[in-house]
């Protein structure tokens, strides 16, 4: 779920990129020789990049009368910086997707549990346009080294579900840019964005784990080295202390011993700090993706109150989507309703271990209202 595009990075790809940037900026790029481009740029762009409007760039080394551009070269960095102000937001719709699923009721029966509520009626299935927000984050993982990558998070804006299913199919689907459909129900952008942040952190899982393992290994190695060093120092001191010394001398050595121990602790904390991970996520750009789905409305009853739930059939996965717990925002197929009709998952609707009271984590996020026990 990390990269939106799977480009083969070789000189051709680099050349195409430069050509596109130049054209977007109003210039002309021509390939008169293999692996080289002749550029004619608007004045301001030319001045910024090369100090002049005409330039010849090559993407293969050793071409005469050209400037060589490759990964990591300062010239390429300048060209890339031109792209940084472009394409902050975009929208696309999946073309040729016409969901035709009927009778979601059976699917709902098969897939969902309602342990503490009663199902009432359901509405007729309708086609509805839903939107996903795809946000790309530039991630820097810093410990004693720095690692950078791009992470993509996708959130269903109507339900706040993390929509992993959209990424791979969307590469294969035909997409068109179009006006936003008129009625698209969605959560406020701030909430969707908060959810996207959580999704991004989750996506980092594997690469973060690798960095964590490497850092832990180095931390253990350095801690061992430190421990051995201070152990040797203490042993030397102990030997001196075991000699028949005056009380004052013994006290002096004893306080030296304490000082060594304190120093060891301090250095150990420094090491822990050195290898701790600082993860910085910076949003780069975002894209809204519209996808038609089939929705069925279902009424459920808890005690005397009723609540309407929406169930979606997703044409990309060919399955009915789980619902989203209002407390932890995780997917769930087991639906619990509290007395205030919050929809929760089994982990967020439970009995307090101390007093046995039924707790809804949406209502009481931190501690039991009866006995105050934290969870």
């Amino acid at each position, binding site marked *: 779920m990390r990269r939106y595009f799977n480009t083969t990075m070789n000189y051709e790809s680099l050349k195409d990129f430069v050509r596109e940037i130049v054209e977007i900026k109003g210039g002309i790029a021509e390939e008169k020789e293999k692996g080289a481009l002749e550029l004619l740029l608007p004045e301001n762009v030319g001045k910024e990049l090369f100090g002049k409007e005409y330039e010849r760039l090559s993407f293969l080394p050793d071409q005469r009368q050209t400037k060589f551009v490759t990964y990591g070269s300062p010239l390429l960095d300048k060209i*890339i910086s031109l792209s*940084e102000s472009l394409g902050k*937001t*975009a*929208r696309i719709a999946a073309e040729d997707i016409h969901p035709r699923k009927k009778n979601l009721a059976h699917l709902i029966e098969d897939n969902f549990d309602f342990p503490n509520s009663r199902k009432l009626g359901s509405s007729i299935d309708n086609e509805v346009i839903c939107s996903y927000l795809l946000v790309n984050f530039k991630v820097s993982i810093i410990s004693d080294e720095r690692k950078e990558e791009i992470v993509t998070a996708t959130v269903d804006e109507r339900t706040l579900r993390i929509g992993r299913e959209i990424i791979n199919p969307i590469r294969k689907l035909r997409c068109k840019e179009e006006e936003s459909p008129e009625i698209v129900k969605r959560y406020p952008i701030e909430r969707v964005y908060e959810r996207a942040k959580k999704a991004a952190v989750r996506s980092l899982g594997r690469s973060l784990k690798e960095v964590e393992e*490497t850092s832990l290994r180095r931390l253990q*190695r350095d801690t061992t*080295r430190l421990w051995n060093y201070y152990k040797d120092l203490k042993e030397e001191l102990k030997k001196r202390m075991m000699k028949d010394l005056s009380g004052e001398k013994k006290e002096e050595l004893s306080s030296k011993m304490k000082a060594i121990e304190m120093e060891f602790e301090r250095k150990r904390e420094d090491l822990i700090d050195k290898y701790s991970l600082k993860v910085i996520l910076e*949003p780069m750009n975002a894209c809204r993706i519209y996808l038609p789905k089939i929705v069925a409305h279902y009424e459920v009853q808890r005690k005397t109150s009723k609540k309407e739930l929406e169930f979606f059939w997703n044409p990309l996965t060919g399955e009915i989507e789980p619902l989203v717990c209002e407390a932890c925002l995780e997917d769930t197929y087991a639906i619990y309703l509290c007395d205030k009709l919050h929809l929760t998952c089994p982990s967020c609707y439970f009995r307090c271990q101390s007093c046995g009271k039924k707790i809804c984590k949406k209502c009481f996020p931190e501690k039991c209202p*009866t006995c105050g026990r934290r969870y």
Partner: protein
Amino acid sequence: MKKSKKRKERRKKEELSYLRFKTWELMDEARYASMRRKTDLAIDSLLRAIKINPEFLEARLFLSSLYINKQEYNEALKFLLRAKQIDPECRELYYRLGFAYTHLKMFKEALGSYHSLLSLLKGRGLNKDDRDLKEEVKEEISTLEFFLEQEKKEKKVVMFQPIQGKPSPLPEKKEGKLEKKGKPEISLKSLLTQLKISKRFTFKKDSALLEKLEQEDYEPFRLYQIRMRGSEISLLKGFDRLLCLDQIKETRKFWYQIETVKKTLRNFRGRVLLCDEVGLGKTIEAGMILKEYLIRGLVKKVLVLVPPSLVIQWKDEMTSKFNIKFVTTDDKYCQEEKEKFWKKNDLVIASLNMAKSRGNFQIITRIDYDMVIVDEAHHLKNRNTLNWKFVNSLKKKFILLLTATPVHNNLMELYNLITLLKPGQLKTPSSFRRSFVLRGDSRIPINREKLRELLSEVMIRNTRSLANINLPKRYATTMKIRLDEDERIFYETLSNFVREGYLSHRLDKFSATLLQMEAGSSPFAVRSTLFKIRERKESSFQAIDEIEEILHSFEIQNCQKAEKLMEILSKGSEKIIVFTNYLETQKFLADKLNQAGIEYSLFNGRLSIREKEASIDSFQKKARVLISTEIGGEGKNLHFCNTMVNYDLPWNPMRIEQRIGRLHRIGQTRDVFIFNLCSEGTVEDYILDILDKKINMFELVLGEMEMILGNLDDSRDFSGIVMDIWTKAQDREGRREEFEKLGEGLLQAKKRYLQIKSYDEEILQHDYEL
């Protein structure tokens, strides 16, 4: 009345509820105080909480941990013992009890607690943390059992041992505080297990982005795509992603190799001393670094300097794995038009000896190289040698030095290598000696921390333990076969022919060596070479007559070696790979297996890629035996087989190792069994005696044989040495003596290697791992 009773009850309930709430507030207070390192305040809050609710388990556990941190174990014990009465099944409780008892040297009680904890950690529903805890507890138990054993032996009196009739193990209180009996140290192991990496996430704000989304202010999708591509390209700048990985074929890429490459490119900027332990793939790492630079267009002109015996090996590996086509100094053109050769060719592999020679030195040192790679770089350890001066004189942007043993005799060798990479990194020789070498013993370092800091800027040394390479064992059996009369006559006749031909120069060295090797394989392998020699125009009449005589004597009905092979195959049903060097022998063995009704598959260099794959597939699914002549193509997975037979033996021990390496490698889960077949009195008999009995080659780690051969005081290659002994010795006794000397030489070389290895491990330890 009733109402007031109800009211009273309700009030009591409310009060109780309030008190319970209060205890948790005190708990929060204690946590907060503890975070600010105000332990006494935290203890105070917890004591108040316990006073309100004596059954408050969490408070007791927290209190005990605070006392443990203060090393007041007796206090901690008090609260833990009471907590045990509240909840006898609390795991945390037993863990802390064990800890406290241990530090009070009450080993028996500690053991009891840990056993109780272990009994709570039973069942299948354990998660990873529980399993880790279980392992830790088991280790603690074995440590305690050890201590108790020791105490019994030394008859030491355990502190606080309960006197008969008095159950309490705790000493008397003195002035409200317990007497401290010194500060027991936290073990390294427990320190390491407690280590965790903390993570902090920071999100940078971009209100403009959110605003644009809110207002549905969009740009064309094309611009979005361009932005993404630009970001991806900029990531590549930092070498976080390697371009070469997709282009490397038929090679497994290990995580530590990829990380080494990234670190070299990112941190060391292409100048590094790669000294991974043997067998970890330094060549692959160097190849990946080179490939990455080539793809990025940062390198064009490359010089690889290797020992003479490795020139062809390097060329083959670079071609087959990395698709990088090098020329070598074996090229005739190199001899004829030197200057043109060196200047025109961008990718050259040369032996260091050849490159530094008079005719080439001046030419090469005038050329601007982008990259220089030196394999077995320990040959540059002495700055006064021509080797060192030559490499130092080369003009280069990037340089990779590869060696598993960077230090042999003293630390100045390391200094000399590092100075080639980064002159001035270790300052001047005298400054280095003063700062980092013990006076009077140039092998011992001082100021290790500082030295380590400086070396870690230019050096990577991955170890087998880091790479987590745990291979199963390998067992080798040499089976000596007594030749029957016909076979013996044939072998002796041929050997005499070869000997006389070689010494009289009627036979060139290559043909003579080939014939002798083939004779060790089978008479069928010899025949085709003899035919070719007979057909050659320059063969003398005498030679032709001799050849005719040998061919006429070629009427061997039985082949004892083949019979032995059939005997091995009859004892079991395991899949077996039979290695032989020669196609004719392969054909012969195939016929033999056919006659015996044993299903087999053939693998040799003449098969196309598809046919090779089909052959391996057939071996895996149907055939019991694979008869193979081809040893290349590491990508072929043969892990499902763990038994091999060397039907004949290459004279180069590294080729034997390569054969074994097809089975005994990462991914193999079973012990590997190797059967070496050799006929008595043949060259192979002597070779196996040396390699197996003298230096235990089959028990060495992959790559060590090469190191040992590198230490041999003989510049000829091994097969050349063997051929010389075989042909020049006057008689059997003479041959035996010469082979004995060779064996001794190898043994000394092995000892030298092991000494160097041990010294390197002591100096470098794990300090330069990733």
